[in-house]
């Protein structure tokens, strides 16, 4: 178990360092000058050069990488070029939107997907299964921004139950803040639930064909008990893997939904920073996300060990 853990940790660290180099290098290669973007079409070349100097953009590449990476080690993420505030402040403002949103969406997706997966697997090949999987196929296929707009028209414009978009901030109260996250969470959760349901179903079907399931059934265990106690547990590994990936996606890959609901989330911060060539923000936020994804994967790896005792005992 300890070896397993240490190995995972070492891989995580190496990934982080490599990611920092790739992120930095890629952003240096893409064309676009943050100083020119800030000054617009009417500024002279001299002025752009002056601002580049003020922003520290004229230092050599290696020096800037070391300065930035050194800052990251001491948890100093630098200052945004455009906003001129510490990056960590920007991230903190966005995480309070993105993290709850991701968690709600993930919870919704799990609550919908696991029962549907169980239901379908139990009725493998029958009408119920076909209908459920047809619905799941639809859930994957429907573009989420369109689905989001339909939700807005129904619940915000017509029924006026929730706001059409925006985020009032947690300071406005827990209820108003949650209300503004409901529709985006549903819009995010549905396609994820569809994918998760399909994975759960196929993992379960595979497990249900195993000999020990037949044995369990043969010794007289009711079908329901076999499904829950023996099959589901063994089908959990692919399901957990997908869940881990989905969480990472929900944390930062939700730019389209954030735009439709004009939520100030992490995805939009990165997107805006890229279009404004606020390189330091992109670099630092991407690194934080890489760290988050690695942490989640580590957790998933650990949870494998919880689900599967063989991984615990193996040296």
């Amino acid at each position: 178990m300890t070896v397993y853990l240490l190995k995972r940790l070492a891989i995580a660290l190496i990934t982080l360092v490599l990611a920092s180099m790739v992120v930095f290098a890629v952003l240096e290669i893409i064309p676009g000058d943050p100083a020119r973007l800030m000054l617009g079409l009417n500024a002279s070349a001299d002025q752009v050069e002056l601002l580049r100097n003020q922003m520290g953009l004229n230092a050599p590449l290696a020096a800037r990488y070391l300065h930035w990476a050194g800052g990251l080690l001491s948890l100093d993420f630098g200052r945004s070029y455009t906003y001129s505030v510490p990056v960590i402040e920007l991230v903190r403002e966005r995480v309070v939107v993105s993290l709850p949103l991701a968690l709600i969406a993930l919870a919704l997706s799990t609550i919908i997907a696991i029962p549907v997966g169980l239901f379908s697997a139990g009725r493998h090949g029958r009408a119920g299964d076909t209908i459920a999987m047809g619905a799941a196929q639809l859930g994957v296929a429907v573009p989420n921004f369109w689905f989001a707009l339909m939700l807005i028209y129904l619940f915000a414009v017509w029924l006026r139950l929730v706001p059409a978009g925006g985020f009032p901030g947690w300071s406005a109260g827990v209820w108003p803040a949650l209300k503004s996250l409901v529709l985006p969470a549903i819009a995010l959760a549905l396609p994820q639930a569809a994918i998760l349901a399909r994975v759960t179903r196929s993992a379960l079907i595979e497990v249900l064909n195993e000999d020990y399931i037949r044995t369990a059934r043969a010794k007289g265990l009711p079908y329901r008990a076999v499904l829950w106690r023996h099959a589901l547990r063994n089908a959990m590994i692919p399901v957990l893997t997908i869940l881990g990936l989905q969480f990472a996606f929900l944390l930062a890959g939700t730019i389209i939904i954030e735009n439709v609901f004009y939520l100030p989330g992490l995805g939009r911060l990165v997107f805006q920073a890229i279009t404004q060539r606020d390189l330091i923000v992109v670099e630092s936020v991407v690194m934080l996300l890489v760290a988050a994804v690695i942490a989640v994967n580590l957790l998933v790896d650990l949870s494998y060990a919880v689900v599967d005792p063989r991984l615990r005992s193996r040296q």
Partner: protein
Amino acid sequence: MKLWKTILAAAALVLAAGTSAFAARTDLVIGITLEPPHLDPTAGAAAAIDEVLYANVFEGLTRIGPNGEVLPDLAESWSISDDGKAYTFKLHTGVKFHDGTDFNADDVKFSLDRARADNSVNAQKGLFAAIDTVEVVDPATVKVTLKNPQSSFLYNMGWGDAVIVAPETADTNKEKPVGTGPFKFQSWAKGSSITLIKSDTYWGAPVSLDKAEFRIVPDAAAAVPALLSGDVQAFPFFPDLDGVAQVQGDPRFKVVIGATEGETILSMNNKKPPLDKLEVRQAISFALDRKAIIDGASAGLGVPIGSHMSPASKAYVDLTGLYPHNVEKARELLKEAGLENGFKATLKLPPPPYARLGGEIIASQLRDVGIDLQIVPVEWAQWLDQVFTKKDYDLTIVSHTEPNDIDIYSRKDYYFNYDNPTFDTIIADLNLTSDEAKRMTLLGEAQKILADDAVVGFLYELPKAGVWDAKLEGFWENAPIQANDLTKVKWTE
């Protein structure tokens, strides 16, 4: 006792409900598409900065009015010396910055000197280039001496980049703007909204609104539902031109189509063969069907142009008849240029819909005359880098939104790569001429030359669609500058 309390409470409730029914609303949520990178109009070119702060939080010596006219602002009046070089501004007295400090001539000197200093990164530093000295005559009088007469000086001082700031707060305006305007900054929830509230110490006519929130709605498709749900009550720059039809028939909303200063053009690299040939550029101009472009890229809104001037401008000369849509003529001209088999070129398109949609239409129109355009979509950062700075392009589409900017064609090293000494002379003359009639003649000649040379493909003036709650009034109809002046905005009930 208990009964009394209940009755009193009920009476109070009725009263409260009654008064609120009679008093008009004083709060407003305005939708904007782009978030300003920071809140200092003197330190960035982003139009979104002015959209929030111009005339609301910050004021200049002069200001630009709803129809592009120059109005007095912090300067109540001015006199100009006979040689046209010395401007003496008489300032309003009793003006306070939002932090409580007094405004006087020292602040004017500080602001102008700061903007034109060597280390200044003011995005429109050119506005101040003619200034020689700024002298404080007395606390309420400032004398600005120019190196040479400049006809546009008063207009220039009305730009957002020329607003007056206080020395104590100039460095922190990016985060916490402090101006002299009728609204003061309250809060900025990054990525979400910026809130202004009424300033109690304002020197001028008081505003009707107590609170104005600028909410950032980045997705055009979200604008209509935001209005319909009542979350946002006004989009002075409505981003979704196709969505205009959806709210146009709705009595709850007012839709106002106005003009901007945005000349939308098919820019050409005048030094890149075969675009360096006049016949080729003219052929392209003949190949363009402006009506179809406006219909497809701008929901049918927008006025065709034949040169680089807004049809709303007094100096406008209609030159749209010079190159009517004529495929035969275009082919003939290409033949004259020795290109009867057409040629290949790239068309780099920045993100706005007018460029991406317009680009596809233009590519198909040019294909009809044998010109094969390869479309290359680019982001703004790439566009600025490759097209604008390095001039690595054949054709591109962009809207030049700066007001009165026909002089860009005379700038050395500008991305059109256009060089015409006659045109340069006219612009130089124009800068020194203050006689209105003579200015109009010169501007007319300038437009004519650009059209004759077919420097670029002149397409149309970008429309401004404003949509707001029908109970609101006081918004600008046109956009002579990119701003949301809220000083006259009020709820009528």
